[in-house]
């Protein structure tokens, strides 16, 4: 009887998640164009993924995106939380909450389109730079070999900033105010308060922010697809986009699947230690 409650969920989950994971693992051992006969290749696809510079660079790019997607929102969010602490009440607080959450509500595709326009050669970013006398810096940011990847990173940071800030602000309101008062009485500086009261008190929220943002960076697809399509010259290419391209444009299903499995393992390898540290310290 009990299993009747669980069976429908398990059925859908098996059909559209578990079995596909198994199939991806199986495809990753093949050379297959998706239509004709497949050849067994063993681990050859994995060797290609880990040695082919064009494929390896997608993984490197994803890790660079982690810096922007994670560090910026968490760093700014922590600073803001420390300053705001208990000031997010009343209608002003509600308005702020609502607005800061808008990037979480709109599709990433829309964020990509909006920012492509912001970062275009006559977009508002260049307009602002010229206005403050930095006209020499203006460029088409997303078409620039050196700046396209950071620009994509900024888009992700914009999307995740509101969520991280609100999580940290909500968390800091739960820290016992007497801890801050005690720190003040002990003559602690603002920085000491931050390091010894805020950061330890927000351990769990920081862990959540890092988990969410790291997954968003490593598995990014929507923003990159819309903003740069992986260009220029593959400088913003990420595993998600390359999997899509290899499988559905170049018909290299086996190689795409191997990259997918590598991506899955990378995400798990990055997330597990974060979860582990969160749990360990909580005790």
């Amino acid at each position: 009887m009990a299993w009747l409650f669980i069976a429908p969920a398990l059925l859908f989950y098996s059909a559209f998640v578990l079995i596909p994971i198994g199939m991806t693992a199986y495809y990753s051992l093949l050379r297959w164009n998706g239509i004709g006969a497949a050849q067994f290749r063993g681990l050859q696809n994995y060797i290609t993924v880990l040695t082919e510079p064009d494929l390896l660079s997608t993984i490197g790019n994803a890790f660079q995106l982690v810096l922007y997607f994670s560090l910026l929102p968490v760093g700014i969010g922590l600073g803001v939380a420390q300053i705001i602490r208990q000031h997010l009440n009343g209608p002003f607080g509600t308005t702020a909450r609502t607005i800061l959450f808008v990037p979480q509500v709109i599709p990433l595709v829309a964020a990509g389109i909006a920012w492509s326009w912001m970062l275009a050669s006559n977009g508002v970013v260049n307009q602002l730079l010229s206005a403050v006398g930095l006209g020499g810096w203006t460029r088409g940011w997303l078409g620039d070999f050196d700046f396209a990847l950071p620009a994509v990173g900024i888009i992700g940071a914009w999307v995740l900033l509101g969520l991280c800030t609100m999580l940290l602000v909500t968390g800091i309101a739960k820290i016992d105010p007497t801890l801050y008062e005690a720190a003040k009485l002990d003559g602690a500086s603002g920085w000491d308060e931050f390091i010894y009261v805020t950061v330890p008190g927000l351990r769990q929220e920081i862990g959540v922010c890092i988990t969410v943002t790291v997954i968003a960076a490593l598995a990014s697809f929507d923003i990159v697809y819309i903003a740069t399509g992986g260009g220029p010259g593959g400088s913003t290419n990420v595993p998600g986009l390359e999997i899509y391209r290899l499988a559905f444009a170049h018909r290299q299903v086996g190689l795409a699947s191997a990259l997918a499995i590598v991506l899955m393992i990378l995400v798990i390898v990055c997330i597990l230690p974060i979860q582990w540290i969160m749990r360990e310290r909580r005790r």
Partner: protein
Amino acid sequence: MSLASTARAAPIGAFAARAILIALMLVTLLPFITMFSAALAPSGTYPPGLQWPADPQWSNFVDAFVAAKLDRLLLSSITIVACVVPVSVLIGTMAGFGLAKLAPRGSQFVYLLFVIGLTLPLEVVIIPLYYEIQWLGLLNTKFAIILPLIGLYMPFSIYWMRAHFVNVPAEMSEAAEIDGASAWQQFWLVQVPLARPPIMSLAILQFLWTWNSFLLPLVLVEIPLERTMAGALGAFQGQWGTNIPLLCAGSLIILAPSVIVFVLFQKQFVAALLQGAVKG
């Protein structure tokens, strides 16, 4: 002590807090403002990033509505949401209850199996999903989006609902058992009414995820009008990407429904997004 007194003791802090929040809000809104100003420029021109046009072309929004076929798109998106969310919330809640309260032998292992899916990037399963949906003969139909999404939502739904049911005191169900209620009656008459808030949050989150899903519709449904909002928006950019005013007007129009729903239910949305992140 505390709140009131600290606020009074630090008026400068309160001022700085407001200034910082206003700056953050401006950064958040800037992309929309610049899209709005561009949307009002004459169609086909290349307007500057932020400038109120001399002659605002409000008709761009009408043109974009027609070009995006927003009426059909809304219908398609609502149909997909209306199929995915109720089914997925129902079977997720049932499984969460089964795993938390009935806990048959082996349920620990099954729960673990579900939890593993929490961090899974969609890209890992998208290739086999394509061949599976093709095999089922469902490519380019709404079912190509509906069925996989339900499966993909199971890890979070079950994690979320189980966490709720685990914390419901055992006396609740014991009282019902003494009255001779079956597990099925217990579920519907006792547990579901108590679980309204988490069910509501779950439904909100799934609505957003479905509405905004992109990669899945992109791969499985070729016709943009049969997709959900985000999938269609991607196609709209592909088609009108060079006409900045029309692209911006269209993007804003396609965004409008979700932003309106969000503002109307912002309290529930914010709560759901915050809790959803913490638990997920």
